[in-house]
């Protein structure tokens, strides 16, 4: 299955072992969900420093699974706000949506990895 939001091949190649990759993807998926919820709240409250901090955290977490689109969007918000450009905050809903897609794809991948592991047992 092809994934749009992240590079499954790169992650697989980097870590090799399906059980390790599953654990890593699981951690990223859980953390992304939590960051995205907090980001939604911070954006609604207009607390831009919190928006920046969460965008930075999302950039770090998404990088582990080579989720380049999420990383690029998160970096734009992080760097823009760090430089005082508040207009980049308007991209926050896009980042939240991208996180949601990534979370869903990671869920599907985890399911596939789990089936593969079961089949090889």
């Amino acid at each position, binding site marked *: 299955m092809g994934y749009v939001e992240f590079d499954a091949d790169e992650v697989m190649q*980097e*870590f090799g072992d399906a059980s*390790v990759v599953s*654990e*890593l993807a699981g*951690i*990223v998926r859980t*953390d992304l969900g939590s960051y995205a919820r907090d980001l939604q709240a911070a954006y609604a409250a207009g607390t831009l420093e919190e928006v920046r*901090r969460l965008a*930075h*955290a999302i*950039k*770090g*977490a998404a*990088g*582990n*699974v*080579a989720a380049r689109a999420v990383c690029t969007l998160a*970096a734009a918000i992080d760097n823009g706000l*760090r430089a005082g450009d508040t207009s980049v905050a308007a991209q926050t809903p896009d980042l939240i949506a991208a996180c949601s897609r990534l979370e869903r794809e990671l869920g599907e991948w985890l399911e596939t990895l789990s089936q593969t592991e079961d089949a090889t047992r």
Partner: protein
Amino acid sequence: MHVLVCDDDNATRFAVKRMLTQQIPCTISECADGVQALQLIGREKFAFILLDVEMPAMSGIEVLELLRESPATKDLPVIVLSNVRDDRVVRHLLKLGVSDYVLKPARAEKLMPKIQRLVSILPKEKPAREQGLPRVSASHPGLVVDGNLDFRFVFTTELQRYGAVLECDSGAAALAAFRDSTARIVFVGRELGVVGAELLVRKMREARGADGLRVVGLVDEHTDASFKSLFDAVIPRSFNTQELHEALRPFVVVPGPMTALSIVVPDMAELVLGAAGQVFGMMLDADVATIEPQSTVVAAASAHVDLTLEDRFVIRLGVHMGVVAATAVAARMMSADPAKVTDQDRATVAGEVSNLLMARLHASLSERSLKSEVSASVQADGGGQVKQPVDGEGLLIGLAISGAGEFFVSLLARNKVPEESPQPAGAAA
């Protein structure tokens, strides 16, 4: 090698830990912010740190600045792993002396060569060097200085399990005791009075030279890093004897039980000899004198009795009589014709002698206020070969009875363990 991974991103910590443990022999502590990192660095000794920059509570830069200010950590190698690309931040980190800077995401291809390069230039692990470092043993005393009487008592009691300990309540007293002693390992605590730890350590090092002296700090969680840096090593202050027991291991020679027993009762052999003199003097109007036993001796009859001492040791006292001695003693004790003494008589007499010897030994130990208890009744072991016990685990004493041959007393010591089950025969084979 012990490594600290400090990053607020759970997945990065997971990935880095896997890379490290797969490629270099190491143990890892991890934390998610700068405050936790400083706490861990204060408690544990790390070969290097992998540090994120942007973290909650305290940033990686703040951690680095604090590390570089402290003499104990100013040279601690740090590799920064971050997704901060800001030039000013990177320049500042380089000024703070980071070993390397690696951009996230953590990928083995980028990170591991930098870690391998760092590891290759780190000082070699201590254990090999520590082999030759001074330790407290039966022949090498330790010096303990601490103004807190309660702690000093607990610590000294634990340390005395391994060797002689000189105890001082102040830095000035320690300095005087150090000059007059052969101690090469010193444990330095707190509340030392006018001569504080810094001065004391400096004076001792001047007197004995850095190589011939090992100075160990007794520290707690509030002790600052600059104080810890005075010492070659530190031990956490604890009133928990089990914790102290574990912490002391690198600083002591763990003795065999007989060696440990010789610290509690240094003249055990003399006590046995004294007991034998009394027994044979009273019973048989005969004298005993020591002889040198061979590595293996042959007994016609053997018997043993166990004694528990100070709730720490079980001492098995065995009596092994040659055929001449066993026959002569049996004939005298039973007023029998030596030609009619049987193997059973010889076994009985070996048991009788071991009982009498143990009673005298027990009395001598009690006179010294040592807690002793005969924990098993006499057991006959038949005859056979008796081997010289392994060094540190026992003694074999040879005795000659005037006009009545030779016999041997074996002392085997072992550490008492809870819920003891009966032990097999001692030295007799």
